[in-house]
Structures are given as structure tokens and as C-alpha cells.
């Protein structure tokens, strides 16, 4: 059985348009496909990834048009439903940003900031992204 890894993701919207993905969530999904056992905690600005109904149209530069613009809510849902990666969101970070729990994609688990340290006990590895 793979080492259970907790991934605390706080980096948000860094190069997502260029890469058409959040490269951390992408990496974890790819590793899960290779047999890893990941769990994700979205904190800080990354809690915004769980907000349903987001996504900008693709970038255009002159005649060049992006055709596969990313949608982070779709990618978070993918992690939960297709990759079976549990995704937590830090509740206080949502509240700080004026995001209500009802605005999130389904399947998100809320986690209090104060409960984060205790969660570490359940994992062989903890990575901060």
C-alpha cells in the first residue's frame, strides 16, 4: 500500500492559464494514477479553487486563441470523483474570503484551521505546496 500523503495546497492561479491546469493538482492526479494515495487540503487563496461556476475564456493574442482554458472547479471535482482524492477546504479561509459553503462544488469536506495539525497524524508524508 502506498504511503498516505497529505498535500496542503495554498498556491492559487499561478500559471493556470498557461498550463491549462493547476500544476500541483495535476501532478497529484497523475501520481494517484500511478498508485499514490493522496489527500488534498486547500488553504489560503487556493480555497477559491472549490468555488463552483468559475473559469475565464481562453487567452487571445492577435490571431492566436487558447481553446482549452482551464476551469479549476471542474479540476477539483475531477480529483474527488474520478481520482478518489479526498479534498478538504479550510473553513476559516473560505469565510475570510466571503465564500459560503453553499458556493462550493459537491464533495468538498470542510476542515477547521485548528484541526489541521491533528490531521497530520494520519499521514506518512505531509507536503506543503
Amino acid at each position, binding site marked *: 500500500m502506498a504511503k498516505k500523503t497529505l498535500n*496542503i495546497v*495554498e498556491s492559487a492561479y499561478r500559471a493556470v492559464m498557461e498550463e491549462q491546469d493547476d500544476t500541483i493538482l495535476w501532478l497529484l492526479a497523475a501520481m494517484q494514477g500511478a498508485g499514490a494515495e493522496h489527500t488534498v487540503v486547500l*488553504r*489560503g487563496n487556493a480555497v477559491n479553487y472549490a468555488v463552483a461556476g468559475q473559469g475565464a475564456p481562453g487567452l487571445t493574442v492577435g490571431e492566436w486563441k487558447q481553446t482549452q482554458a482551464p476551469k479549476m472547479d471542474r479540476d477539483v471535482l475531477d480529483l474527488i470523483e474520478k481520482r478518489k482524492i479526498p479534498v478538504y477546504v479550510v473553513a476559516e479561509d473560505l469565510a475570510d474570503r466571503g465564500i459560503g459553503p453553499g458556493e462550493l462544488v459537491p464533495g468538498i469536506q470542510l476542515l477547521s*484551521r*485548528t484541526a*489541521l*495539525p*491533528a490531521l*497530520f*497524524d494520519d*499521514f506518512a*508524508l*505531509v*507536503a*506543503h505546496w
Partner: protein
Amino acid sequence: MAQYLLIESRDPFESNDVGYYYDLAKGLVEGGNQVTLFLAQNGVLSARPSAHSGALGALARSGVTVLADDFSLQERGIAKLAEGVAAASIDVVVDHLAAGHKTLWH
């Protein structure tokens, strides 16, 4: 009880997220774990005695071992350290990794 190494590369002057990381260290200690906070890069700027270094003293009193990377200190000309902070070499990071302690970087 587990042992943790938390590496903090950011400083509270430029990032208001450093408080979260200090709180994480304190939360882990309160959970019965042994925690070392290793300040590196601009993270050592808070190790110079200032209005912001009280937080590090408080962490040390709560049971967190607070260390500051000697290379980063020297690079920034920081000779005097705030209460509760000790200088340490980067070997400490490798010691913790080699011992299997959960190691995080912020």
C-alpha cells in the same frame, strides 16, 4: 508523538501568511509532537530583534525549537538574535530528513 521540521522561508514583513505557519507549529506542539521551526532565507528577517520577533519568543516558550539558518543570517548581516532563536547550520535540515521527521516547507 511525532517529530516535525517546519521550514519557513518567508518573513512577516512581506507575507501575512507567516502567522498561519507559526500557528501550525504551535498546534503541532500542543498536539504532543516535537516541533522545530527552521527559519531560512528571508524567514530569518524576523529573527532580528524587532516588533515582529516577539512571536518567535512566544513559540519558543510554547515548546517549539526555533532555529535560524546561519547562512541566511550571515547573508543579511544579522548578528544578534531575538529571544528564543538560535542559529543553526543547514545540516539540521538533513538530520531531520534522515531521521524520517515529517518536513514541510513554507
